[in-house]
């Protein structure tokens, strides 16, 4: 295989890995927007929370690395569950404290509150974990699949067990969420609440509980993304939620905000745009390309690629 082709394949692969973790975060944005039409700017910080809290758990348990045997098969999934519960719980708490009292206030009020909540969380993270870059130790074993397992000698292609882990966690979670919303009774109630809150409560749906559930599921997914990120990239910082949140929010809008499949699709598109932009145009241009595509798309298709659950209103 020529170097050029290998490079292209590797960059497509890099783009897909970016899409995988962005997708999990984008889902939370899109679900919350779908139900209460709030752009929850603090959502990205839940991602950072998942990163920090899981690191704290790993450190507290004193788990040796790399993870092997029992620790890999039993302890890691348990840490996943705890991280998701805590992140989901924190998101519900945020809703309870900051957004719920403003449910019927003018649209701008909860939006500003969300921005304020994001800053508050970031400041708290900086106090909790310090303002500098933090290393997330390499708990997950990294093995070069092509060279060490398959005995191939590619010039550039580099795919490791960590990549398998990334997709192995994120794809099932995305599929699981889609099935949850499409097939379960609770999911049906969520869709109903998204369509029309008042009508949903008239037919006996406890809308407050549905909203809390939505925040919980969204937060749990962002927390899972934070843990996956930590094990995958091994590095983070108190502000990481801002950067990831910005891209994930863009992904949600690109795919059609409020639309679950759209959020995932948007995330993969953004991941690919970033990887291709970095490679073929230049790192400094990647962000310009991503947002230029977003603007163009919104001009010609205001409700995003797959269409929003409702028309986008000006915020």
């Amino acid at each position, binding site marked *: 295989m020529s170097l050029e082709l290998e490079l292209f394949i590797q960059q497509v692969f890099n783009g897909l890995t970016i899409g995988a973790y962005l997708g999990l975060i984008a889902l939370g944005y899109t679900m919350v927007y779908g139900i209460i039409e709030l752009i929850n700017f603090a959502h990205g910080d839940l991602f950072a929370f998942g990163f920090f809290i899981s690191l704290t758990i790993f450190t507290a348990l004193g788990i040796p690395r790399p993870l092997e045997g029992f620790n890999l098969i039993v302890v890691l999934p348990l840490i996943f569950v705890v991280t998701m519960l805590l992140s989901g719980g924190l998101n519900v708490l945020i809703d309870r404290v900051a957004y719920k009292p403003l449910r019927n206030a003018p649209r701008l009020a909860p939006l500003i509150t969300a921005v304020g909540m994001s800053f508050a969380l970031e400041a708290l993270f900086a106090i909790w974990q310090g303002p500098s870059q933090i290393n997330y130790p390499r708990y997950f074993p990294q093995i070069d699949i092509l060279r060490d397992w398959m005995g191939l000698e590619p010039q550039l292609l*580099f795919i490791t067990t960590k990549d398998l882990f990334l997709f192995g966690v994120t794809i099932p979670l995305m599929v699981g969420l889609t099935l949850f919303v499409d097939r379960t009774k609770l999911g049906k109630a969520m869709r109903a609440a998204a369509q029309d809150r008042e009508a949903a409560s008239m037919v006996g749906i406890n809308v407050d509980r549905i909203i809390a559930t939505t925040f919980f599921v969204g937060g749990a997914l962002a927390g899972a993304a934070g843990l996956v990120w930590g094990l995958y*990239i091994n*590095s983070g910082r108190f502000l990481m939620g801002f*950067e990831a949140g910005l891209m994930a929010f863009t992904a949600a809008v690109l795919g059609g905000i409020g639309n679950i499949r759209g959020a995932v699709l948007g995330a993969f598109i953004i991941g690919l745009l970033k990887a291709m932009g970095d490679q073929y145009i230049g790192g400094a241009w990647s962000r310009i390309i991503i947002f230029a595509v977003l603007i163009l798309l919104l001009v010609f298709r205001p409700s995003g690629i797959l269409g929003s659950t409702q028309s986008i209103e000006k915020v």
Partner: protein
Amino acid sequence: MSVKKLFVLLTVLMLAVLAIVPVSAQETIKIYTSWPLQGSMQPEGESMLDAARLALQHYLDDHDGVGPAGFNIEIVATDDASPTTGSWDGVIEAENAQRCVNDAACMVYFGTYNSGAAKVSMPITNEAGIAQITPANTYPGLTHAWDAGEPEIYRPSGEVNYFRTNASDDVQGFSAAAWAQCLGFTKVYILDDRQLYGKGVADAFAQRAEEIGLEVVGRDGVESTDIDFRALLTKVRAAGADLVYGGFVIDSGGPQVIQQMDALGLFGSDIKFMGPDGLVNPALVEQVGGADVTDGNIFLTFPGLTPQQLTSDSGVRFVADFEETYGYEPSPWSTYAYQSMQVILNSIERAGVNDRAAILEAMRGLSEFEGVTGIFGFDENGDPTITALGGNIVEMGEFVFSTEISPTMNESCDMGG
């Protein structure tokens, strides 16, 4: 008549005495120092002041106790830190400079530590025509073209009156390129955080690399808040680079780039990382994953030599006498406090008079001067013609001085030190 004769005799005697007295009556020249002497900077500031005093003492020891051109030298130490914040304050810095200007005996203004403070005092000393010399400022724009309008905005009179004996940040980039070539690297990929400092050193690196034939296979600016550099580093690998030069500081993407270079196997494939002093921070090693990641893979430059790195006879004497006299180790920038004081004394000696303009003129004309870091003079901007910098590597997770580096070291690649 006899009274008149006596009067004449007395007058002649008086005149004779007057003619002899000025040589021994020693007029005083004052040198005002200005850098932080309280707050977190206190240890560094105190050490720099002691280094300046020691330079004066050494001068007197070497000249039978006679000051330069027979003048008595007095160091007036002022503090430009605010008692409330503990760090430098523009208002206080301006007052310090004004005090020197208003004191007819003040011939040289010796400061500042912070480049920001120098931006305040430079225009004041410049208009007064007083020589100013720094023991530590590295910001390039103070002496030569850098950001818009620099350095002219600091020189209202149009004359150069500000000098430094240490390297500016951009010289780090030049030296890094020369060092990279000496280390055997041939293809460099340059990254920077697109900030004033990071892009500045990266630009300097690129410029010198081109001059000495070190191939630059790619260049990218990154978003300093970005968290995922894998696509960019895949590009670096495909470009065939054997070195990544990163114009970063500790919180603008540098640690992530290093850490992801390791995760993507670049270090394992003998692609190394080199960066400027913005990354010389003990926290870096822990941030990128510990000694396993850093050892042998990271090269960092530092814009000067610490006292402990000096190898000249005068440098060794400076460190030995400093420790003996003051009872502690001199701080990093004490090297340049000592060396700049040497330059001040030498300039007064050559001027021969206690005149601000004459001393300034003498300092401007400094050439072939033997300081503790080597032999140098001043160019037309007030920068040192030759500067020595430090090249650091990481061993067992600790930064270790590896060799003295310079923009022209690639000509001989003497890396013995």
